C-alpha cells in the first residue's frame, strides 16, 4: 500500500474525493508518522489528534468539501485556534487556550483541511533558527544537527519529514521563505494584506503576513487559495480578488517573462555553493524562455537596519499586552509584590533573551527625542526600497535572488552572534518592507543541503510567483531528503 504521508496534498485530496482512501485513514497515517518521528524532529508543540480525526470524519461524512478537504496541515503556533494551546513559542503564553479561531484557522476548518496541531517557532517569530523557542529547538530533517530555519522551523520541518503535506507559516522578515530554503520546501509570503492577520499573534503588524508552505508549488497554490481573500476583521486586508495562483502553478514555460537578478543580493556574504545553485537556477529560467537581466536596487543595502528598527518598534508595542493581568504566565503574585512588580517579574521570566533584546531596541527607537532619528528614518528607507521595486517593475516582471545566503547551519552556531543570525534574512527582508509577494522554491543542494531560489513580484501579482515556481519545479525537480536518521 502507498505510504499516505508521501503523497502531495493534491494527490491526497483527489484520493479522498475518489474514496480510494478515507480522510480518517489519511489523518491517522499522519498522526502515526508524527508519533514515530517527531521525538527526533520536534516540529510540533501540540498535537490535536482528537480534533484532527473529528474533522476527518466530517469530511468523510460529506459535511465538508473542497480542493483540500481531508488534507492534513501543520499550523504555526502563532495562529489562534479555539480551545487549542497557542504559545507563540513563549513561556509567557504557556497554557493559554484562545477563545477564538484566527480567520486563517476558520477558513482551513471550513475547507475541510485537517489541522494536526501547532508547530514550533522562534519565540513570537523572532529568529531564523527556531532555537529561540522556549520549548526547545526543532531539527532539520536533512540533518538533525542543523537548524530547520526560522521562525517557522516547525512548519518547514514537518513538511520535510513527511509529518504533514501542508503547513501555515508567517513571514515578517523571511520566516516562511528562509525555513523553506533550508529544508528544500516551498514557502510563499503573499502580498501584504492578501491573507487576513486576524488571529495571527502580532510581531510586527506592518510586516507580518501569513502564507502557505508545502512540498510542491501546486499544493502551495491550493492552500493559498483557501486562506487568501478579503477579511472585514482585518483593516489592512486587501479587498480584491485572489490572484489566479492555482492556474499559474500549472505553467511549464516562461516564454516572454522578464526576470531581473538583483545585483545587491549576490556575491559577498553568499556561500559559494548557494551562489552556484542560484546561478544554475537562473539558467534554468532562461532555458524555460525567460529573458534575464541584472537589476540594481541600491537601497536594499539598507533593508536590514531599517527592518531592525521598524519590526522591534512595533513589537515593543504589540508585546506590551503580555502583562500577567488577563492571561498567561503570572510570577510573584504573593500579595506583597506590587502590580508593577508582578508585571515586571512575569515579563522577565516569560520572555526569552531575543524577545527582550527586540523589545528594548524598539522601546529605544520610539522614545521621545530618538523617534525621528530611528523609526522615522527607517520609514523613509522603507519608502526608498519600495521605489526600488517600483522602478524594477518598469523593466522586469519578477526579481530573483537566493532566498538565504547560507544552507542550514549547525544548531548553536549563531546563537551567540545575533547579527550573524539577523543576516540570514538579508535577501528576504526587502519584500516585507515593500509589501509585495515573494516565495522560495527548492533549487538543488549544496554540500548535501537545500538551497532556495527566491522570486519576488509586484503587489497583488502573487500568480507570477507560482508561474515561475511551477515551471521551475517541473524543469528542476526538488531534491528529496534521505531521512537516514529514521530508526
Amino acid at each position: 500500500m502507498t505510504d499516505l504521508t508521501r503523497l502531495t496534498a493534491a494527490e491526497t485530496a483527489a484520493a479522498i474525493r475518489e474514496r480510494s482512501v478515507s480522510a480518517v485513514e489519511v489523518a491517522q497515517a499522519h498522526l502515526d508518522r508524527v508519533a514515530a518521528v517527531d521525538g527526533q524532529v520536534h516540529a510540533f508543540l501540540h498535537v490535536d489528534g482528537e480534533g484532527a480525526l473529528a474533522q476527518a470524519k466530517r469530511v468523510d461524512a460529506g459535511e465538508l468539501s473542497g480542493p483540500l478537504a481531508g488534507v492534513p496541515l501543520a499550523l504555526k503556533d502563532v495562529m489562534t485556534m479555539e480551545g487549542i494551546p497557542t504559545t507563540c513559542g513563549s513561556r509567557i503564553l504557556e497554557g493559554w487556550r484562545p477563545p477564538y479561531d484566527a480567520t486563517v484557522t476558520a477558513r482551513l476548518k471550513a475547507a475541510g483541511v485537517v489541522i494536526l496541531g501547532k508547530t514550533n517557532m522562534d519565540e513570537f517569530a523572532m529568529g531564523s533558527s527556531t532555537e529561540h523557542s522556549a520549548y526547545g529547538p526543532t531539527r532539520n530533517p536533512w540533518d538533525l544537527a542543523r537548524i530547520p530555519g526560522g521562525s517557522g522551523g516547525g512548519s518547514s520541518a514537518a513538511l520535510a519529514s513527511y509529518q504533514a503535506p501542508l503547513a501555515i507559516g508567517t513571514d515578517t522578515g523571511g520566516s516562511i521563505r528562509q525555513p523553506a530554503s533550508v529544508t528544500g520546501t516551498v514557502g510563499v509570503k503573499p502580498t501584504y494584506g492578501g491573507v487576513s492577520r486576524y488571529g495571527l499573534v502580532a510581531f510586527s503588524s506592518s510586516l507580518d503576513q501569513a502564507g502557505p508552505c508545502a512540498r510542491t508549488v501546486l499544493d502551495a497554490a491550493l492552500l493559498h487559495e483557501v486562506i487568501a481573500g478579503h477579511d472585514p476583521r482585518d483593516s489592512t486586508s486587501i479587498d480584491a480578488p485572489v490572484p489566479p495562483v492555482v492556474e499559474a502553478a500549472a505553467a511549464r514555460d516562461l516564454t516572454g517573462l522578464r526576470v531581473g537578478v538583483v545585483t545587491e543580493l549576490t556575491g559577498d556574504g553568499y556561500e559559494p555553493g548557494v551562489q552556484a545553485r542560484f546561478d544554475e537556477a537562473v539558467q534554468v529560467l532562461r532555458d524555460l524562455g525567460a529573458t534575464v537581466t541584472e537589476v540594481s536596487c541600491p537601497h536594499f543595502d539598507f533593508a536590514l537596519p531599517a527592518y531592525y528598527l521598524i519590526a522591534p518598534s512595533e513589537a515593543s508595542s504589540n508585546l506590551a499586552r503580555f502583562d500577567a493581568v488577563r492571561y498567561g504566565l503570572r510570577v510573584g503574585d504573593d500579595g506583597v509584590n506590587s502590580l508593577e512588580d508582578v508585571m515586571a517579574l512575569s515579563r522577565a521570566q516569560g520572555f526569552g533573551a531575543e524577545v527582550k533584546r527586540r523589545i528594548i531596541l524598539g522601546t529605544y527607537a520610539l522614545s521621545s527625542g530618538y523617534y525621528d532619528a530611528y523609526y522615522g528614518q527607517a520609514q523613509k528607507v522603507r519608502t526608498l526600497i519600495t521605489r526600488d521595486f517600483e522602478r524594477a517593475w518598469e523593466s522586469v516582471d519578477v526579481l530573483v535572488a537566493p532566498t538565504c545566503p547560507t544552507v542550514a547551519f549547525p544548531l548553536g552556531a549563531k546563537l551567540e552572534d545575533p547579527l550573524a543570525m539577523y543576516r540570514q534574512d538579508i535577501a528576504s527582508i526587502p519584500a516585507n518592507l515593500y509589501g509585495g509577494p515573494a516565495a522560495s522554491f527548492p533549487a538543488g543542494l549544496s554540500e548535501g543541503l537545500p538551497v532556495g531560489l527566491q522570486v519576488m513580484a509586484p503587489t497583488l501579482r502573487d500568480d507570477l510567483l507560482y508561474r515561475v515556481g511551477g515551471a521551475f519545479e517541473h524543469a528542476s525537480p526538488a531534491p528529496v531528503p534521505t531521512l537516514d536518521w529514521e530508526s
Partner: protein
Amino acid sequence: MAYDDDLREFEPVIGLETHVELGTASKMFCGCATEFGAEPNTQTCPVCLGLPGALPVVNEKAIESTIRIGLALHCDIAVWCRFARKNYFYPDMPKNFQTSQYDEPLCTDGYLDVTVDGEVVRIPIERVHLEEDTGKSLHVGGATGRIHGASHSLVDYNRAGIPLVEIVTKPVVGTGARPAEVAKAYVTELRDVLRGLGVSDVKMEQGSLRCDVNVSLNRAGEQWGTRSETKNVNSLRSVERAVRSEVERQAERLRRGERIVQETRHFHEDTGHSTPGRSKEEATDYRYFPEPDLVPVAPDPAWVKGLLAALPEAPSLQRARLTAELGLSELDSQAMVNAGALDVVLATVAAGAPAAEARNWWLGHLAQEANTAGVDLAELAISPADVARVVALVSTGALTTTLAKQVVDGVLAGEGTPDEVVAARGLAVVSDEGALTAAVDEAIAANADVAQKVRTGKVAAAGALVGAVMRATRGQADAAAVRRIVLERLGVTE
C-alpha cells in the same frame, strides 16, 4: 487673600480638555455593546480585551460623530489622518497601548462662542480627536476605594474600547476676573452642542463627559506661567470650583515667591480642592507611532459637506430664536441660561405651558428643590411635561398654587404623574360654593372681632379670615373664591 484680589494681581490662562464618550451602539474597534451599568465584563470580545491576534476595525459612526462635533465647533476636517498608539502600562488598558490620535487629529482649529454676563467670549479650539476609552479599575479592601491600601483590584473591561472624543481648547487668555465662569460656561455650552448633535448622552455623573482643567497665572506683561492640569473634574459646578481653587493655590505660591510645578492634579468633589498627581519629571514617554493595524482615515469631502449641511441649529442660535419667539427678555433668558433652566423651560413651553408660568416654576420652586438636592434642574425627577400639566391644572382652577406645589413635591417624591398625585393625595380644589360658604361662616363666628373690623371698613383684616378658612380646608380651597365669599357674607365691597 481673596480670589478676586488674586485675579487683580495675576492674569489667568486657562485651557480645557474634555472627553466625551460617544453614544454609538457598538465600541470603537469591535462590535461589542456600549450599555452603561451592565454586569462587569459582559460587553467584551477578543478585540476589546486585547487578546493576542485580535485586530481593530474602525467604527464609521464614531468617525462621523467626531467630524460632526468638529464641524459644530467650526473646525477644519482632515482630508487624511491616522490613528496612533499611545504606549503605557496600565491594567485597565487591555493592550497596554491606547489607540488614539497624535499629530494627525480628525478636526483642528475651531472655536466655540459662550456667553458670560451677557458678553460673548470666543473659546478657540485646538483639536478634536478620536480614541478608545479604557476599562475601569475597582480597588477592593482599602478604606478609600483607592489603590493605596487596597488588598486587590478588579477590572471591568465593559468600558474598554468605547469611542471617546477629546476636545482640546487652545490657551484661553483675557478672561480677567471670570476664568471660572468662562470655564463653566464653555463646558456647559459644549455639553449643549454635543446634546444637540445627539452624539452622546453627556452625563457628567456617569462619566460620559469628563473634563481636565489647565490653569496658569502670570503678572501683567510677563510670560505665561507654568500650568497645572487638574483631572477628575466631573460636574459643571466642579469645573468652576476647580478653576477657583487652582487660581487661589497658584496665587498663594507665587506671592510667596515659590515656583509652580508642571504637574497633573486630582480634584476632590468633597473638599473642592485638588491634590498633586504626576509631575512632568515623572511623566510617561508615550512612544507614539502610527497605528499599523489600521488604515488611514480619508473622509470624502462631499460627505463632510453633507454632514455640515445637515447639522442641527447651534444651541446659542436656538436660544436666541426661541427667547425672541417667546417674548422673554435678554435678562430673563440669561438668568435661565445661568441656572441651566433654558432647556427645561423651553421643553415645558413646548408641552403647552405659557412661557411665564414655565419660567416661574423652574426658576422658583424647582430651582430651590434642585439646590437643596444638589442636582441640576434637568436631573430632577419631574419632567417638563409634568410641569406643563400642573400649570394646566392651575389654569383650569382644578388646583390652587398652594396645591400645585404639593402636587409637584409629590411628583418629585416619586409618587407618580401629577394626575396620580392629585388623585392619591386627594388634592382637588374645594369649589363647592355651599361648603365654602359654610366654612366662611364658621370662621366669622369664631373670629367675631376680626369680622367686626372688616365690617367697619378695615378690609385688609379679611386676610385673617381667609387664612382661617384655608387652614380649615387644608389649603384645598381657592383663596380668591374664599376672599370673595368672606366679603360677601360681611356685606363689604372693595
